[in-house]
């Protein structure tokens, strides 16, 4: 008993072929979209790679680029088959490839599912990479004369300005590192000497943040030094002063940016899976209704199209049997010999 049979006359077949052809081209455009989003994601990761200590994983964008190209090719082929389906001469050359095409389609859907899962799960890896990377960035902020780290200051400043954030978890991360290079410190000054001697590592620590933490939207000119000392500035209470510097940490800011991107791409991939399933179902109906025509010379005749030749259980049992036959060919041979003797 075929699964979900539907009767088709000529008009219905033509309509199905036309609608399916448009659907295939929509799928090609979606494939191009996935490809471009993969490239965009890769470029964004590269741009922020200094914040992630150059150790970020490019697995997801590379997979997206590959999957995007495969989707385009796959659906372009399907569209061509649709286009030729109503001409028996042209359709005849595609007929032998259809079975493999459907199997490939099934496999491709599984790959898409894996890619969607990766989009959602790799966010954890991005979070951890950001946490580590930002820690190093803040530590190396002052090393503008060390080769390989010359641009860390500029990159971190521009990231803090662009993403409106300060520090790793929050602005207090800046209090724990020396972010002013020794080159710019006047070591003969008493105050400087006191600060350097006040901690074990001999670092010049202070309760100040770089200028890039300043919020331009604050009505007050930016207070970046002596942040924890309420009496250092006129009319300043550190507990109520909200707008002066960015309070959000850069890890949270960057993570929410990448997380939004990865969630959107994951949703698009799931939509592509649904689209591909609809494409394959439609093509199956079209091809089976064409093959089931009683009189191939007369296109006006009615025919029946179905999704599967037998019910789901029987199809799965048949497929398992074929797999077993492939895996153990010797047993079949022995069984054949036994009755002879």
């Amino acid at each position, binding site marked *: 008993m075929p699964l979900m049979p539907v009767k088709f006359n000529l008009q219905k077949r033509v309509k199905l072929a036309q609608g399916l052809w448009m659907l295939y081209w929509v799928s090609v455009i979606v494939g191009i979209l996935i490809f471009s989003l993969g490239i965009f994601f890769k470029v964004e990761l590269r741009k922020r790679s200094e914040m992630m200590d150059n150790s970020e994983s490019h697995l997801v964008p590379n997979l997206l680029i590959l999957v995007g190209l495969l989707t385009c090719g796959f659906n372009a082929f399907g569209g061509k088959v649709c286009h030729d389906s109503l001409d028996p001469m042209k359709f005849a050359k595609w007929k032998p490839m259809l079975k493999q095409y459907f199997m490939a389609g099934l496999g491709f859907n599984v790959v898409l599912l894996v890619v969607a899962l990766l989009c959602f799960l790799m966010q954890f890896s991005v979070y951890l990479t950001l946490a580590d990377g930002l820690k190093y960035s803040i530590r190396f902020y002052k090393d503008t004369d060390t080769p390989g780290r010359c641009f860390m200051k500029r990159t971190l400043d521009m990231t803090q300005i662009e993403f409106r954030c300060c520090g790793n978890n929050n602005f207090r991360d800046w209090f724990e590192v020396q972010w002013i290079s020794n*080159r*710019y410190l006047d070591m003969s000054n008493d105050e400087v000497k006191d600060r350097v001697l006040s901690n074990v590592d001999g670092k010049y620590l202070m309760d100040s943040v770089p200028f890039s933490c300043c919020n331009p939207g604050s009505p007050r*000119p930016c207070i970046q030094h002596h942040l924890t000392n309420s009496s250092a500035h006129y*009319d300043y209470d550190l507990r109520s002063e909200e707008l002066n510097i960015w309070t959000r940490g850069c890890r949270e800011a960057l993570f929410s940016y990448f997380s939004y991107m990865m969630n959107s791409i994951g949703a698009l991939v799931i939509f592509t899976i649904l689209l591909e399933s609809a494409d394959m179902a439609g093509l199956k109906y079209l091809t089976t209704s064409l093959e089931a025509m009683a009189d191939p010379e007369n296109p006006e005749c009615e025919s029946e199209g179905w999704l599967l030749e037998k019910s789901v259980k029987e199809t799965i049992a048949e497929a398992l049997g074929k797999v077993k036959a492939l895996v153990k060919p010797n047993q079949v041979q022995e069984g054949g010999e036994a009755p002879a003797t």
Partner: protein
Amino acid sequence: MSLGRVVLTPSDRRSLARVLVLLNWVSVVTGAVLVLVGVYLWVELWRWEVVLSEGVVWAVPAVLVWTGLTACVVNLTGARLCLDAADVNRFLRWKLAMAPYVGVSLLLTAGVLLVAALCLVAAARLDGALEAGLSAAMRRYKDWDRHPGLKSRLDLLQIHMSCCGNVRYQDWFRVQWVPDRYLDRSDPGVRARLSSNVIGQYLSDSVPFSCCDPASPWPCPQTHLRSSPAPHFRSLAQSSRSLGLWGRGCREALETHYSSILHHISLIAVGVWAFEVRHAHNAPCR
């Protein structure tokens, strides 16, 4: 004796009409391009309108949009006309409209050229408008109550355009940019500064944080830029580059930015004009 007389067979006329219809559609596209360019210019001007609130340059987007729309309408009519030219019966309807149509398209062609000239004039007049706008904005920087948001827009301008002050960073030394409510009048230092000038303004040798250049290795000392710096800094060279501030003034930065946009727009307008002139000979349609 008519000028440029050519004898055409019916099939020649049909293919000529087809070519002219295509050219008219391309002109519709160029008209749309003018409209888009006008909208883009308006958005760019509105982005920094805090320092450029008036000037000839604000008339340019409106002129571009109207010229573009007129070009679209005229060329759509032309396309329709040429489409009907192939059929004698339908063409008779258009006979009366021919003369006004030719007149309007000639005016349009001249108008596009005027738009290009207007862009160049606006670019030349930018300097004065920017000077006035920037001085006013810098004076109002501290007045958050009367001009809320002006401070943040000016800060964002300095950050995005990589500039500081009107002509150079020292312009900030001549205005009071710290609001009065954050000045401790009981402090002798503050009182000294307030009494040091006629108007009683708090002038200091410091600049806002938005003047800081992230690419500089200096951690940006904003205060004590003229005298000896904050105690922990070594003495600094006087050029603003090594101070870690933006080297150029906002007037220069904005002028370069807008002039280049206006010059590109006038080039596009000249290109559109040249294209219009080449196919303005709709006489063969008659």
